[in-house]
């Protein structure tokens, strides 16, 4: 799947989930609940190489989900 589509989807999620103490959990749940494993792994890979394109919460989500997937 085209990575630009995935990143657009991720940016949409970032913009629409308000920033507060549960944001991390909501974004994380959303990716796990609705994205296929392939979409997630492609996206994680992209984020790792393009950190500045996303906010700190999305980076944290990706790091933790990636670690979980690799565990």
């Amino acid at each position, binding site marked *: 799947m*085209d990575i630009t589509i995935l990143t657009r989807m991720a940016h*949409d999620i970032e913009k*629409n989930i*308000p920033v507060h103490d549960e944001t991390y959990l909501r974004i994380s749940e959303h990716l*796990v*609940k609705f994205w*296929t494993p392939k979409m997630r792994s492609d996206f994680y890979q992209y984020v790792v190489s393009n950190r500045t394109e996303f906010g700190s919460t999305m980076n944290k989500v990706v790091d933790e989900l990636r670690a979980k997937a690799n565990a």
Partner: protein
Amino acid sequence: MTILSDPRGTMPMRSGIGEPDYGTPKSNSEVMVSVTIDGETHLVPEGTSVMRAAGESGCAIPKLCATDSLQPFGSCRMCLVEIDGRKGTPASCTTPVEDGMVVRTQTTKVAKLRKSVMELYISDHPLDCLTCSANGDCELQDMAGVAGLREVRYGMDGKNHLDAPTDSSNPYFSFDESKCIVCNRCVRACDEVQGTLALTIEGRGFNSKVSPGGLNFLSSECVSCGACVQACPTATLQEKSVIDLGMPTRTVQTTCAYCGVGCSFNAELRGDELVRMVPTKTGGANEGHSCVKGRFAWGYASHSDRITKPMLREKITDEWREVSWDEAIQFTATKFIAIQEKYGDNSIGGISSSRCTNEEIFLVQKMVRAAFGNNNIDTCARVCHSPTGYGLSTTYGTSAGTQDFKSVAHSDVIVVIGANPTDAHPVFASRMKRRIREGANLIVIDPRKIDLVESAHISADYHLQLQPGTNVAVINSIAHVIATEGLIDEEFVAQRCDPGPFKRWRSFIELPENSPEVVEAQSGVPAEIIRQAARMYASGKNAAIYYGLGVTEHSQGSTMVMGMANLAMATGNIGRDGVGINPLRGQNNVQGACDMGSFPHELSGYRHVSDNAVREQFEMLWDVKLMSDPGMRIPNMFDNAISGEFRGLFVHGEDIAQSDPNTMHVEKSLKSMDLVVVQDLFLNETSKFAHVFLPGTSFLEKDGTFTNAERRINRVRPVMAAKNGKQEWQIICEISQAMGYDMHYENAAQIMDEIADITPTFKGVSFAMLDEVGSVQWPCNDAAPEGTPIMHVDGFVRGQGQFMETPFVPTEERSNRKFPLLLTTGRILSQYNVGAQTRRTANVTWHPEDVLEIHESDAALRGIVDGQKIAVSSRIGETILTATVSNRVPAGVVHTTFHYPLSGANVITTEFSDWATNCPEFKVTAVEIRPADSSTAPLNDLEAVLTKA
């Protein structure tokens, strides 16, 4: 003494085979009164008419102007009775029973009066009973017999109406004025039942006649709902199919396959030929009413375009080749298996259809999960109400509307947001309009001036005519007013809602950025109108929200659903009659498609595939290992097809090439696949890219259930034999078996038994149960054996209601210098979705092509006049439509429908979608228009349009 709660009497009938007509509506009073009729004493609810009490007791009183779907009128004088202690002979229809009343219905005096009245009627009526189309189904004929009429003393040669003309302008029914007895039933049906008020009685005395506003029926305001035809006691208003084919002789009760109202109909047949569809009075959703689609537009089922034999081709450029079912099934299975062997288990998937039955949908998702071995199943609800599922699940705990349709009769304030019920859900709209005529307040939030804003005896108190794409800003500003002006129902919130999220929401919603004054600049809605509408919603005793695709088909569709849910919780408008959050589902079985587990992340009953306990239940029942990760959504399938990862698709009853956004992108993805299997009634846009075509069954051939927008599970019964020789669930079983997964059922009832077995909210449902009670609303289980008309009564499904913050994020699709107008799309009354059904009926009379509504100032600016061909272009593509200059849309906004493939409305819609569900943003596309010229591709050459774009 008999208590007449179970009427045993039957009366002369008109409204469908087997349905009694008691003359006046049922009283809902719980107070019982005693009445003695012809020597027998009965208890009836207070408010019951003498006519109805007599009818229910088995003493049928003659009548002509009375029918139990209408208020009593008292004009025909056939129902006269004698009542002890009363002077004269009152009309039994307009006389309510009083406690202790003694009534005599069959005296010499009233018999003589009735006979005299009948003589007058017959003296001005054609005596052609034997050749009349209503012979055997005519109340006038029946009453002449009941009155014992043997002669007409006045003769037949006096002044009469026997030469009055017949109006045959309507394609479905005729109006033979010579047979009219001016009973007013048609006029009252149009007023009371439909609420269009298109008919009137013109003239006085002998010159009185029914008139569609001085015009013929076709050119009048008549919406062809059929209520007048239903009400007519003679052959004056008669279905043309009855005139052509003769009176039906048997009936099968089933459910309409058009919109999400899910009307019950009696399919009336003569032999094996369907003669007419008559709305069922006992139908829970429609209670005897219908619209032009359900009542009349069923001819597509027998249209010559129907494909009834399976077809194959190796390449999409080859000609179709008819094959046997065995060959088609084997080809399909072998190809799917080969693709998976080469590209992996995840390389194929399926799309289920909301036009199919619960049983068929359940099996399609079962086939994908069990036989395909992945979760790549999605449903066309993706492109309409998936945000409803997300939003209502998050806030309330389940993906469904909160009320039954009847609830609207208790609403004091009705808010309609992004919906156009009079066109898209007309039978429910009639209920809504009735309540508004009774005095309920109405708030419409819509970019267009829909009919509800201003029509006969209906006027919205507030029309918030917002810019497309600003729903969330407006709903937030309404909530802001409620929160900052002390209008929150603190007691409800404290008792029923999670306090943490509420506190956070309150802080958010009170921010100045959500104030009407700020939102006015974003939405174009005056701040004071927002404030007044908010106060009206919050202070009404019972306030209900009804919404449609104008809410969901946005980049913030899910946010908007949560915003409305917040509003209902904040004001305590949840959990009783007259309130709630009510999605008006687009297709007949959108609710069912979602319930049955056809989203890639959920099994039936909205349980996530990652839930080990749930998955184990399915694995044990299906004897197969299931995947625990979500599969692809429809847009993911398209994108992955283009990138080469997704190679095979089973499309069940859905024309994705016409209905999904960005047609070029969809077509490119379909062309990229190795195998596209389409199961449908007709060759459609998607089948142009298919390798296998499996003929499907129409709703008249199906055996199963549909679930409507109020969660009502209704039986769909086969009216005629399947034209393709197989039920669709059988075909799905055969593909699964050919792929190595043993799926077998004896009948559709067994499938429902499995659904009930594995789905907690369906636990109590079975065909036998539905056949006994008619219909039931889920949840239907041990906790609610009779179903659940209203949800969240004592608590939310998720426990406490969860407020969600709903920040307004403007769509990236904005008007600019190149594309200065915003296009929004919708439906029209006579057509349905991609038009595959309605385009193959006489409904094309009203809507032969999609048109573009454009405001007069925008039209003038571009030199465009009404009826002119115009090119509509977006950054995605270009198409051609005919302009309709109209002030229904504000300046800067244009609107079209998507019922015709040639107009290709989705050629220009974009890839933007809801952030949470990927429901396409159909409702906002920046466009420019110009008069079509020689450089513009012709209307009938979509390929050229596509190429040029």
